């Protein structure tokens, strides 16, 4: 499962000779005047688990529905396994979808639901029974075949929907908020199950979600969408650690943003002056930005250290503030620190010790400092 991926280094997108399995070329979709999807180009490779991540109305579901064939692109093309999908009806596409509402047929049993797609393809009866039994076993619903959808719990329904979409062995499986309707605990276990099944069957998955945590854990790559455009594509690590814009940095995870200007630069470092931080920010790599241009430095809360005493060598990347609030989360605590400039900064600290007299608390004066590699410079 997860570790299998990292050890075999499944990264076809880095291989210039790899042929994309799904190719979305300059696709635009308009509903009247409203542009839902705006000139999106995207390559997805075989056996990938690709997540489209974005807020509501960002166009991710429209893009998914165009892959399924429920919407036709206003312009642009979609290729699946080399075949142009223009004008091909949903019922003729080698694509199946798991719907957000699961869309189980309420008047059919679990077995009939799962067998429905195979019947449409005129698969022989005996084979249908075999394949249905096998896939139900895979999603651990072997004994539920005779039940109707309303006799199942939410998690079971989700697995029926998955089985129904998988049983046709589609080239591409689309999942619209697959875990959205489940509660938090169930969601976590289902996430891993989903990854395991994808790994076993080797089907290419495209998942739409608004939940960044879900996207981070599930996917091989993520495409972050906003206003109908794909803002950044990359592995979860790339998206989190190297966001390409303020939008991505802010949408994925929590971030502290410092606006500033370059005051000193060379090939291997920049120093950025920031009024709000009342200190200069040092970054240990060069930046492709015109001098004196306005830019932003993003620092993740977990990368900031919080101390009462000033750190040694505190010339850059160190600001003073007062603890304004603490949110205790169990495994960690979130500190809201008010800088002397008035700006609020979020810092997370793991709660490594069960109880300590010496923990930083409300109204303490503190130093915030971070490593030269922690800040991300953003120009957009």
């Amino acid at each position, binding site marked *: 499962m997860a570790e299998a991926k990292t050890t075999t280094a499944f990264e076809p997108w880095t291989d210039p000779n790899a042929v994309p399995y799904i190719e979305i070329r300059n696709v635009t979709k308009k509903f009247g005047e409203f542009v839902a999807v705006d000139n999106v180009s995207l390559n997805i490779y075989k056996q990938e688990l690709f997540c489209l991540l974005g807020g509501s109305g960002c166009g991710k579901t429209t893009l998914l529905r165009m892959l399924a064939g429920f919407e036709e692109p206003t312009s642009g093309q979609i290729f699946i396994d080399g075949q142009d999908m223009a004008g091909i009806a949903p*019922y003729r596409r080698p694509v199946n979808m798991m719907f957000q509402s699961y869309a189980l*047929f309420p008047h059919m049993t679990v077995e009939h639901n799962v067998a429905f797609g195979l019947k449409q*393809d005129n698969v022989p009866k005996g084979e249908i029974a075999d394949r249905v039994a096998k896939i139900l076993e895979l999603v651990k619903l072997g004994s539920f075949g005779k039940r109707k959808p*309303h006799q199942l*719990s939410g998690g079971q329904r989700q697995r029926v929907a998955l089985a129904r979409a998988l049983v046709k062995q589609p080239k591409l499986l689309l999942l619209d908020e697959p875990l959205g309707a489940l509660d938090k605990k169930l969601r976590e276990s289902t996430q891993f199950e989903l990854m395991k099944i994808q790994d076993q069957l080797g089907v290419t998955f495209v998942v739409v979600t608004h939940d960044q945590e879900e996207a981070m854990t599930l996917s091989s790559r993520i495409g972050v969408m906003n206003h109908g455009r794909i803002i950044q594509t990359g592995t979860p690590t790339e998206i989190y650690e190297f966001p390409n814009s303020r939008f991505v940095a802010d949408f994925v995870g929590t971030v502290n943003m410092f606006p500033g200007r370059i005051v000193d630069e060379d090939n291997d470092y920049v120093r950025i002056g920031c009024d709000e931080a009342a200190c200069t920010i040092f970054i240990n790599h060069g930046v492709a930005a015109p001098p004196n241009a306005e830019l932003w430095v993003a620092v993740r809360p977990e990368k900031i250290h919080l101390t009462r005493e000033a750190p040694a060598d505190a010339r850059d990347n160190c600001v003073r503030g007062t603890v304004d609030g603490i949110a205790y989360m169990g495994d960690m605590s979130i500190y809201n620190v008010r800088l002397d400039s008035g700006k609020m900064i979020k810092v997370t600290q793991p709660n490594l010790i069960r109880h300590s007299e010496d923990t930083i608390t409300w109204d303490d004066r503190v130093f915030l400092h971070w490593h030269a590699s922690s800040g991300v410079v953003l120009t957009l």
Partner: protein
Amino acid sequence: MKQKSWFLRGALALGFAFLYLPILSLVVYSFNDNKLVTVWSKFSVKWYGVLLQDEPILSAAWLSLKIAFMNATLAVILGTLVALALARFGAFRGRALLSSLATAPLVMPEVITGLSLLLLFVAMEQFIGWPAGRGTLTIVIAHATFSMSYVAVIVQSRLTGMDVSIEEAALDLGAKPAKVFMVITLPIIAPALLSGWLLAFTLSLDDLVIASFVSGPGSTTLPMVIYSKVRLGLSPEINALATLLVGFVSIAVLGAGLLMARQERLRQRDVQMAIAGNK
């Protein structure tokens, strides 16, 4: 916070008394021996005997049932098509016109509908020779025209209440649109079709005004016979007829209600079982 005020209880009780006492009086006095309907003499079922010998009433009732059956079937087909177009085809040209054409018959006074349809039938006969004369056919057409609106409203609300992705899922799994309709949509909206059919049947069985306009000689429906009798004054035979009708409808509706309640109970039990039993 289900506090019950006496005012509300009283309003309900009085309201239902107002709705049901007149019907009850019809039933009670149908068992009156006296020829004067409202003067009680003694219990008797003789008017039921008279009713069952009354050839014009019986043949009119038979005709009305036939018309109601044909009308209901036609209205369900047409009304379902309207509902499908309005609920599923998105914005198409002429949608607004179709929508108002389909709902206008609901509030159109019957005299206007009746008169305009008759004038249409006369004009059509004059120019294309069809329909030749007025009778069962013209009544069915007229009834279907206004009862399809009721069916359309019922089916449309069921269609809009239904999760569209269920149909999309069937398409996605390889079923063609026509098959999706037959195998998925139709079974799910079947209850709406049934209640639409029953409503159309009742509306047709009940209609006096429109049928009077578009009927011809030899196609006298039950309401037309009742009307001509009622105009002449009270008749115990009509009471007996009303009692039979009320009895029939009550049994049918109560039966349907009990059946629905039972299914709902079973459903509830299943849902409880699903929540409690397994994870």
